């Protein structure tokens, strides 16, 4: 069985036409004065999904989250949760909880009281509150810190208190606004896996806002890439990476080589693209690109082979000169300058300690790739 990327996903309600949507944004627009933060956006999220909103700052992802939490009202359109229109429901009556970017821990309350806050608010009996708080403290491994105040905790511990507080009420949906933004790199990586495990364990629907693509790729079942208040693509991490829908998405996620050109020839499956200087690229599965159309061929650096001699048997091979080399240990990154001046980035894993074909600066080199290694982008 073949699939995009290296993961086979069994959980994929978005491919099931009968699956019931859980959260629905229907033509939602949000304006702040003249500024359009969210523009006629529609989006469906399924139950138990780990959904990431990914985009640069100011793309409207946080506004979307705040509308779901109830802190902002859509200018037009509607938001449904489990089939129910959320319009007019104030934040304190919505079955969603949010983990704030700043954590927003109450500084005058202990860890315990912070976690118990929402439970007491809904009038849960005291014994149950205590039980649930103990459960939550155990879940985030903070039992010894129950009596501490937030300012006596480290950044990572505060993050876990915030998490415990927001899941204590067992919300239908947990909203996470840049949940790992304030942590250092190592802690962030550990916490990513903890969050995924927690989501599995509690069986909740998570919607996370992040500007860190690695974070989104690691944690999410699906990612919505946003730009200027619009969704550019909603897909699994593998699809976003291997089959980006547009030039923007291809550029936004990971590194990419982009060859601009025209479709010279088109068969049912394949296409030949001619670059500005006449270089030909043969592409398999060219999608909806019709003959004569202006398109871009996007290919990831690790899909490109680099060699000193012209390789046999590969349809696409371009000659150039090694311009820059970065040796990173696990892999080497080459920048090859083609005859038309375009720089191609090729990455090769250093799977062997000893290289048969070492290259150096200013060497003539060939970059080659399979016809199915990249995608044709019309947008």
């Amino acid at each position: 069985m073949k699939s995009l990327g290296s993961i086979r996903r069994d959980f994929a309600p978005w491919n099931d036409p009968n699956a019931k949507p859980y959260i629905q944004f229907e033509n939602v627009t949000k304006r702040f004065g003249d500024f359009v933060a969210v523009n006629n956006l529609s989006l469906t999220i399924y139950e138990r999904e780990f959904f990431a909103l990914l985009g640069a700052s100011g793309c409207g992802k946080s506004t979307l989250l705040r509308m779901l939490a109830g802190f902002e009202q859509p200018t037009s359109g509607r938001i449904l949760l489990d089939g129910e229109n959320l319009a007019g429901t104030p934040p304190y009556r919505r079955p969603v909880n949010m983990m704030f970017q700043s954590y927003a821990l109450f500084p005058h309350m202990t860890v315990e009281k912070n976690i118990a806050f929402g439970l007491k608010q809904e009038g849960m009996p005291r014994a149950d509150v205590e039980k649930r708080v103990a459960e939550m403290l155990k879940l985030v491994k903070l039992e010894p810190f129950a009596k501490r105040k937030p300012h006596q905790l480290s950044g990572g511990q505060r993050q876990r208190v915030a998490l415990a507080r927001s899941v204590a009420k067992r919300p239908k949906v947990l909203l996470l606004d840049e949940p790992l933004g304030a942590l250092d790199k190592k802690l962030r990586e550990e916490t990513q896996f903890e969050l995924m495990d927690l989501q599995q364990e509690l069986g909740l629907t998570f919607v996370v806002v992040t500007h860190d693509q690695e974070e989104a790729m690691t944690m999410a079942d699906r990612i919505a890439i946003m730009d200027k208040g619009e969704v550019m693509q909603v897909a699994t991490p593998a699809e976003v990476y291997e089959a980006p829908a547009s030039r923007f998405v291809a550029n936004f996620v990971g590194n990419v080589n982009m060859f601009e050109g025209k479709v010279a020839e088109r068969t049912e499956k394949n296409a030949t693209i001619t670059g500005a200087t006449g270089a030909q690229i043969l592409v398999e599965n060219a999608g909806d690109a019709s003959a004569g159309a202006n398109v871009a061929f996007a290919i990831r650096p690790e899909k490109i082979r680099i060699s000193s001699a012209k390789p046999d048997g590969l349809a696409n091979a371009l000659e150039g000169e090694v311009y820059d080399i970065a040796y990173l240990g696990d892999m080497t990154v080459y920048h090859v300058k083609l005859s038309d001046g375009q720089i191609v980035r090729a990455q090769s894993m250093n799977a062997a300690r000893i290289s048969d074909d070492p290259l150096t600066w200013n060497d003539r080199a060939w970059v080659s790739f399979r016809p199915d290694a990249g995608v044709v982008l019309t947008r």
Partner: protein
Amino acid sequence: MAGATLSATTANGAATAQPATQLANSFVSKLVIIVPYAFLVIFFLVPFFIVFKISLSQTVIAMPPYTPAFNFGGGLSGIIDQLKQLNFDNYIFLTEDPLYINAYFTSVIVAGISTLLTLLVGYPIAYGMSRAPATLRPTLLMLVILPFWTSFLIRVYAWIGILKPEGLLNQLLLSTGIISEPLIILNTYTAIFIGIVYSYLPFMILPLYSALEKMDYSLVEAAQDLGCPPITAFWKITFPMSLPGVLAGCLLVFIPAVGEFVIPDLLGGSQTLMIGRTLWNEFNNNRDWPVSSAVAVLLLLVLIVPIVIFQHAQARAQEQGR
């Protein structure tokens, strides 16, 4: 490894630079501390001891109007002789005459009620200011401070013009037909409350504003997110977080209000009895310097208690903010 080397060199660099600057630094920092303390000793502690000494003296019709008047002509034995004449008679007199106890009591009550009223008026203003658009806040702050540009005394006199039976307020109310008889406000405690609330409002608003403005609004959102309606969120989050500001504001109003003299004298009339006026009467009308000094010393003691509470609370808040 590189980081360790780097920090080692900087530590060395600092060590070689230290001996020369350290001495100068400690001298400068001592000087900086000495200046305000010297100021307080010369202009507060020394006068206080003079007042305290007079409070232990007896009144006489003379110049100065108390005895013993210190002179250092008699040498050490002369000074000891003079010290022997001092006693606590004036303090005993103050406790025996209900006038003074009543005046103290009334002052504390009036100041307490005024402080509460100022808080009730000031809190919504400070809250509104702290939630106003950031560009508008400096202007609002300016408006709060603006009254200080006119003399305090003139502003209190202006209230006489407003509150007197034929004053602006009564004219307005009479002409609109809300009342048919002029209200008697001037020369009552109500007028004192109005005067104190008006005069001390900025002292309440400013610390409240600074406490509320510092507060992260996402805390309120978090409370709402966890199920608090806005009113509950206010009482559970916003108000407790603003308590240091509430306390600072209340003490900044309460302390001067207890000893307030101008407002009770101008707006309160002759029937109201507050300790500031009693002191003034004692000093100027009766020319009894020793008793008025004793009143002043006791007033200070009454006020030191809330000041100590205030400082304790402030130290605790600072500890918490860390």
